[in-house]
C-alpha cells in the first residue's frame, strides 16, 4: 500500500521519481517548477537510493546529461518550464534520433519568450508536434492532478524504455504548484548493472571483448540508411499510436456536446459539464491523457454515437483544437475557447463559450 | 658492430601519401612511390630498405596507422 500525503504537484513528481528507482535527475531552476530540484536536493536521494541529483549550468547541459546517461541505460529525467524547455529542444531531437529513453517534465508557463510565470497550455505544439528538428514524436502525458504528477513518472519510464523514446510529462503551473492529497508508490530498488546489461543490450556500459562496440548517435551520412532509420522511427510511432492511447470520458454516454480538455483545463471543464447538466444540457468531457498518441478514435466514436459538436478548452489561443478538428474531419463542429497570459478560465465562461460557439442559442 | 636491422610494411591501399613519415625517418629510408594506389595517392615505401633500423618513428607519426615496423638484432 502506498503512503497518503499532501503535496505540491512538483514535489509529488520528485518524490515519485526517487521511489520509482530513478537513477539521476539533471536540472536547472525555473519558475514554476523549481520545487522539483529543490525537493530532490532536500531529500538527499543519493543517500536514500543512490539517485544522482545535479544542478547543471543550463537547461542545455542538463538535457545533454540526460541524453548520455539515458544512452548508458539508466533511468534519468529532467524538468523545466517553457523557456527552459525551448533550450532543451536540441537535446530532445538528439534523444529522438538516437532512440534514448528518458522522461522530462514541462511545467508550462505563458509565452512567447519570457512571457509570464502563470499557468499556460500554449506549449502543446512544442511538446506534441515537435520542437526540435526532424520528423519525430515524443510520448506526451498530460497530468490533471497531483496524483497523476506522481503516477506518470512510473508510466513515463515504463513507456520510455518500452519504445526507447522520450516521454514528456506536460503539466502546467497550476498542476505543478497546487497542493492535493496524493498516494505515493512504495520505494522500488534501482536497477543493478547486471539487470541493465541483461535488459538493455543497446546501452553504453562498456563493450565486452569480442562483441560489437555500441554507438549511440543520431548521425548517418548515408542517405539510404537515414531514410531507413526515419521509416523505422515512424513505424515505432505508429505502434505507440496503436497501443498507448489513454483518455478519460466523463458524462459522455448520452452527451450531445463534448468539451475536450487536458490538464488543468480538464478540471475546469468538468465543472462546466456539471453546470450545463443542471441547466438541462447534455454535456460531456473527453480528457486526453496522452496527447501523443492522441485519442483520435475516441472523438470519432463520440461522433458515431451522436455527439454534435466539440469545444476544445485550452489555456492557449488554440493549439489542441487542430487535433480535435483532424479527428472530426469536418463531420461536426469543433471550436476553441481559452484564456491566455496566465488567466485561468472559469467554469461559467467555459460553459458560455460552449453555448455560444457550439450549441448556438 | 652490433646493431639492429629493421623493415616496414605499408598498407599501401590505405596510405594517403601525406609524407609525414618520410620527413620523420631519421635514416631517410622512406619515400613516396611514383605509382599510385587505388585512391590515387603516391603511397609511402622503403626507398632505401638497407638503411632501416626499425626505430618505428614512421609508425608513430603515421596519422593513418598504415605502417607496421619489424626489427631484428644483428
Amino acid at each position, binding site marked *: 500500500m502506498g503512503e497518503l500525503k499532501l503535496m505540491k504537484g512538483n514535489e509529488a513528481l520528485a518524490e515519485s521519481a526517487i521511489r520509482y528507482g530513478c*537513477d539521476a535527475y*539533471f536540472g536547472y531552476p525555473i519558475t514554476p517548477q523549481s520545487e522539483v530540484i529543490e525537493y530532490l536536493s532536500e531529500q538527499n536521494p543519493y543517500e536514500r537510493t543512490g539517485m*544522482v541529483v*545535479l544542478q*547543471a*549550468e*543550463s537547461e*542545455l*547541459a*542538463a538535457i*545533454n*546529461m*540526460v*541524453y*548520455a*546517461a*539515458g*544512452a*548508458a541505460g*539508466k533511468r534519468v529525467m529532467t524538468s523545466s518550464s517553457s523557456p527552459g524547455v525551448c533550450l532543451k529542444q*536540441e*537535446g530532445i531531437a*538528439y534523444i529522438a534520433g*538516437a532512440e534514448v529513453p528518458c522522461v522530462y517534465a514541462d511545467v508550462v508557463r505563458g509565452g512567447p519568450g519570457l512571457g509570464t510565470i502563470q499557468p499556460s497550455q500554449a506549449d502543446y505544439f512544442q511538446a506534441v508536434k515537435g520542437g526540435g528538428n526532424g520528423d519525430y514524436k515524443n510520448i506526451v502525458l498530460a497530468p490533471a492532478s497531483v496524483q497523476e504528477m506522481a503516477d506518470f513518472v512510473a508510466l513515463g519510464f515504463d513507456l520510455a524504455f518500452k519504445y526507447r523514446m522520450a516521454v514528456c510529462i506536460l503539466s502546467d503551473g497550476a498542476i505543478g504548484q497546487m497542493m492535493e492529497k496524493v498516494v505515493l508508490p512504495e520505494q522500488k530498488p534501482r536497477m543493478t548493472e547486471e539487470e541493465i546489461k541483461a535488459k538493455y543490450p543497446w546501452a*553504453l*556500459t*562498456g*563493450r*565486452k*571483448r569480442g562483441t560489437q*562496440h*555500441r*554507438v*549511440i*548517435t*543520431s*548521425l548517418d551520412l548515408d542517405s539510404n540508411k537515414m531514410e531507413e532509420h526515419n521509416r523505422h522511427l515512424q513505424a515505432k510511432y505508429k505502434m505507440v499510436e496503436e497501443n498507448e492511447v489513454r483518455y478519460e470520458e466523463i458524462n459522455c454516454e448520452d452527451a450531445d456536446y463534448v468539451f475536450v480538455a487536458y490538464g488543468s483545463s480538464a478540471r475546469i471543464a468538468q465543472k462546466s459539464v456539471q453546470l450545463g447538466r443542471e441547466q438541462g444540457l447534455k454535456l460531456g468531457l473527453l480528457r486526453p491523457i496522452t496527447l501523443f498518441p492522441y485519442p483520435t478514435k475516441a472523438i470519432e466514436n463520440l461522433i458515431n454515437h451522436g455527439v454534435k459538436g466539440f469545444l476544445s478548452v485550452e489555456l492557449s489561443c488554440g493549439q489542441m483544437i487542430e487535433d480535435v478538428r483532424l479527428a472530426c474531419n469536418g463531420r461536426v463542429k469543433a471550436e476553441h475557447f481559452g484564456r491566455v497570459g496566465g488567466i485561468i478560465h472559469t467554469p461559467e465562461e467555459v460553459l458560455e463559450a460552449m453555448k455560444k460557439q457550439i450549441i448556438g442559442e | 658492430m652490433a646493431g639492429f*636491422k*629493421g623493415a616496414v610494411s605499408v598498407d599501401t591501399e590505405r596510405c*594517403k601519401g*601525406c*609524407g*609525414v613519415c*618520410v*620527413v*620523420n625517418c631519421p635514416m631517410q629510408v622512406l619515400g613516396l612511390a611514383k605509382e599510385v594506389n587505388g585512391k590515387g595517392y603516391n603511397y609511402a615505401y*622503403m626507398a632505401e630498405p638497407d638503411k632501416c633500423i*626499425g626505430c*618505428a618513428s614512421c609508425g*608513430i*607519426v603515421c*596519422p*593513418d*596507422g598504415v605502417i*607496421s*615496423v*619489424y*626489427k*631484428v638484432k*644483428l
Partner: protein
Amino acid sequence: MTVEDIIKPENLVYEKSKLLTSKPFHYCPGCGHGTIHRIIAEVIEELGIDEKTIGVSPVGCSVMAYDYFDVDFIEAAHGRATACATGIKRVWPDKVVFSYQGDGDLAAIGTCETIHTCNRGENITMIFVNNGIYGMTGGQMAPTTLEGMKTATTPYGRKATLPAGAGFDGIPNNGYPLHITELIARLPGTKYVTRQAVYDPAHVRKAKAAIKKAFENQINGKSGVNFVEIVSNCNSNWKMDPVKANQWLVENMLPEYPLGDIKVDGKLVEK
C-alpha cells in the same frame, strides 16, 4: 638479410592498436586527428580498460570518431560533449569516460559546458584538439585562430580590433586567440592540465604519455578533470601540404600555445 626475412610476426615492434576498427579514417592526408586517435587507442589498450571505457565524440571533423574506436561511444550535440561525459560518469562512476573535442566545439559553442564541467571537477578525461580553425565546415575562424591568420571568415586575417582608417581604429572585431586551457587550469576542479603536440615522433611519445596520465588519474581518482590539449594541424584549411603544415605549426602555433604541463596533481606548474 632481406626485407622478407625481417617482416615476420616474431619481429614486429610496432603496429596500429587493435582497439582501432578496420575502418579507414576519413580524415585528410596528414591530419593530426588520426595520430591522436591512434595514441588514445594505444593507451586504452595498454591500460586494459576497453571493457569499461565510454567515449564521447563531438561535432566537427571528429564527429565520427565512434567509427574508429572499438569501445562504446556516444555522439554529442555541438559543444555538449562534456555535459554528455558528465551524465555518463555520474551514473557509472566506475566506468572510464573520455570526451574528444575540437576548438570550435570545446572553446566556442561549448565554452559554458567546458568551464562548468571543469569547475565541478568531474572525474573524466578531456581531449582537446586545437588546430586554430573550423575544419568540418570549411575553414572558418575558431576561437583559437591566431591573430592575422587567414580563414574563410577572416579572409584578410584575424584582427582583434579593426585597423586604422575611416575612423574604425580600435573598434572590437574578431577578438583574441582564446587560451581556454590556461583558463580552465586555474579552476580548482581541474587536476591535470597539459598541452602537447603530435607533429613528430618525440612529441607523439610525450603526448601519449600525457594521455596515459590523464586516463590513469581518472582510474585512480575520485574527482578532478584531466585535460589534454593537443596542438594539431589542418593542412586542408591552412592550405598547405601536410609536411609544411607541421612546420607552420611549430613556427606559428607553438609560440602562441606553448607546449608542456600547465597543472599537475592539482597544482599549477611554475614557469
